[in-house]
């Protein structure tokens, strides 16, 4: 038995013993997702909390981070085995976190030792929930045009301005934020800072979306005092950190294109509404054809995701490849929800009823429309692919 086989056997046994049965059920709604943080209610869902604690203690919420920062210290091959074993029992992700998917990788690359030791273990254990202060009312696709200012005040900055589309700002504990420290240049005048959302002068206001939910906020900074030791990387070098982090954000968003694990809700939904004919085929042949072609793309994209992650871990991925992943994954996810709506018919239109789980299908469908906007629009991703991968002229 190789070391990796042994690791697989041990991991399987440990997961079997430690992943509660409730955490192997499909995620039905946002309420089933664990985000951790100061406002997290551990008592509200004991199996969820047990799963988070068990995985957090092993560092397996971030299996490939170094142990000294709260990670699992696993090799790429071991990390892959862990993910495969989790998938095989349909284990839920124990912790959803922008700290894990976005800030963590940037801190690992650009943070000082002190910053890493302070923030990474709390991310790994789900103690602090982070949000991202990037977009502004006048800086969306043209992100580097941001105006939120950070005035030098000795050992700290005074931050003034407004962010928008800050995901879950009203539920987050800390923010990683892009601020302008030099008004004379564009990309070269941006710095990357961290601050507590409870700092005086910070306020948030949820934005009601077409889904009827408010996953995004406006975030206002009014003379917010941010210690300079909370700046990541050099002053005016924040754009490097921002771009690096965006790559990771795009990878995360691209995961939406994968669909869920286990049973396929699109197919199950279609069978429930239109039924099967005598040959066992979906009774609506055109809907069946559309789903079948879509499933080809989904399965192929799963292979692409696996390939991308393998290449990334081996340092073989093109640095702009996350843009391709983000583009493809989000467009695929929008297609999926169009098909789920078509398959559901009028059942999928109910907005408030209990049987519709308060309109889970139509609200999720509407939510996906932001996928190809947030984290850089599809058009921005295509620009990046064209210029950086295909090297087309400007």
């Amino acid at each position, binding site marked *: 038995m190789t070391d990796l086989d042994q690791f697989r056997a041990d991991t399987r046994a440990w997961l079997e013993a430690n992943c509660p049965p409730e955490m192997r059920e499909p995620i039905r709604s946002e309420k089933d997702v664990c985000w951790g943080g100061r406002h997290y209610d551990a008592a509200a869902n004991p199996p969820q909390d047990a799963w988070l604690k068990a995985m957090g203690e092993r560092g397996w919420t971030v299996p490939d981070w170094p142990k000294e920062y709260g990670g699992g210290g696993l090799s790429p091959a071991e990390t892959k085995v862990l993910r495969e074993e989790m998938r095989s029992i349909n284990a839920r992700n124990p912790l959803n976190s922008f700290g894990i998917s976005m800030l963590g990788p940037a801190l690992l690359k650009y943070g000082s030792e002190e910053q890493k030791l302070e923030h990474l273990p709390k991310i790994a254990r789900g103690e602090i929930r982070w949000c991202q202060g990037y977009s502004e009312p006048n800086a969306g696709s043209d992100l580097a045009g941001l105006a939120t200012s950070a005035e030098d005040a000795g050992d700290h900055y005074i931050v003034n301005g407004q962010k928008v589309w800050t995901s879950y700002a009203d539920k987050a504990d800390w923010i990683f934020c892009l601020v302008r420290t030099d008004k004379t240049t564009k990309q070269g005048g941006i710095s990357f800072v961290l601050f507590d959302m409870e700092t005086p002068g910070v306020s948030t206001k949820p934005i009601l979306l077409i889904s009827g939910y408010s996953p995004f906020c406006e975030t206002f900074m009014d003379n917010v005092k941010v210690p300079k030791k909370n700046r990541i990387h050099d002053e005016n070098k924040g754009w490097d950190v921002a771009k690096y982090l965006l790559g990771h954000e795009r990878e995360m968003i691209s995961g939406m294109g994968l669909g869920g694990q286990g049973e396929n809700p699109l197919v199950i939904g279609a069978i429930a509404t239109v039924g099967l004919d005598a040959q066992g085929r979906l009774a609506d042949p055109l809907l069946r054809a559309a789903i079948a072609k879509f499933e080809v*793309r989904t*399965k192929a*994209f799963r*292979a692409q995701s696996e390939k991308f992650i393998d290449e990334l871990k*081996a340092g073989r991925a093109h640095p702009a490849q996350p843009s391709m992943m983000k583009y*493809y994954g989000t467009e695929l996810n929008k297609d999926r929800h169009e098909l789920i709506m078509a398959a559901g018919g009028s059942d999928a239109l109910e907005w408030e009823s209990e049987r519709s789980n308060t309109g889970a299908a139509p609200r999720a469908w509407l939510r996906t429309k932001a996928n190809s906007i947030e984290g850089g629009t599809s058009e921005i991703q295509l*620009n990046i692919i064209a210029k950086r991968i295909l090297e*087309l*002229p400007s």
Partner: protein
Amino acid sequence: MPLYLNDEQTMLRDTAKDFVADAAPVSHLRDLRDADDPTGFSRDLWKQFGEMGFTGILIGEDQGGLGLGHVEAGVVLEEIGRNLSPSPFLSTAVAAVEALKGSAQAERWFPGIIAGETVAALAIDERAKHGTGIAMKAERSGNGFKLSGAKRFVGHGHVADLVIVAARTAGSEHDESGITLFAIDKGAAGLSADAERLADSSIAARLTFDGVEVDADAVIGEVDAGADPLNRLLRAGRTGASAELLGVGGGAMDMTVGYLKERKQFGTLIGTFQALQHRAAHLYSEMEVARAAVLKAQQLLDAGDAQADEAVSVAKAMAAMATTLSVNESVQMHGGIGMTDEYDVGFYMKRARVLSELWGDANFHADRLAIAAGY
């Protein structure tokens, strides 16, 4: 196993890339077409494939081959696709070899295949659209069988030394059991071939079996259990065709991206236009996803994984869809010159159409996946 080529596979790719581009570039296809060559490929080139060792990639070392797998065969096929090289490699060194592997006929046919002398043809399809039906009859006769019926879309069927044919020894057209696979020698009495040149200048035959008598030892595997070697043949063939499609789609895309960087209109390079940049970037994305699907299928086939069958259909459907997009976008972005016979991009479009159709198009494989998934 990581989902990218390992060092040995990368070396093989580099070797294949140089060799195929040098020995059989697109101009080779054009020359054969212009000469109205009746064979449809060059037997000398096939010998060279043998000298390079490519012909034995899927044959075990104990039988004189290289003992490699579908990833390696795919590496060669991608270069064949990229150069549109007319070659019996896919039918012979991939599909036929997989059908014969482990059977009594392997010893007889493998040396000629390894040497680049034997050419195999696969007589499977009976209708214009590939399907699961095998109706052609093989009746017991004396010590062997008598085959009667017709097959079509048989690449190299008019010149092949070996014809592998699927016929029915029991049951009805769509039954899985009752199929028997036969290995038939060139020139068998009662076997006639009508050679048809296809849109891509390749030649496929319509074969007529008029009471063709064969010995019992022509049977590959077991009588009535031909579905087993037939499925091996189809899995290998479909995966190989997918790899060749990647080469065709990738080759067309590279030509097109190159063209965008040199063609000027309105006083500037057309590659600066966002309308064209976005089309090219979208195409790149589709080709990348297809590439991953094909590699996944190859790796699962090599590992003997139970998921391989599904992955093969995903690969064939996705490679066909992405490559169809690629050749269409390529002609469109070339503009008028893309419509001329003089320019190579049209050859890519034609080859993509033939490969997309071979052993089931994207609709066939999407349908197959849906049935397997229970809808």
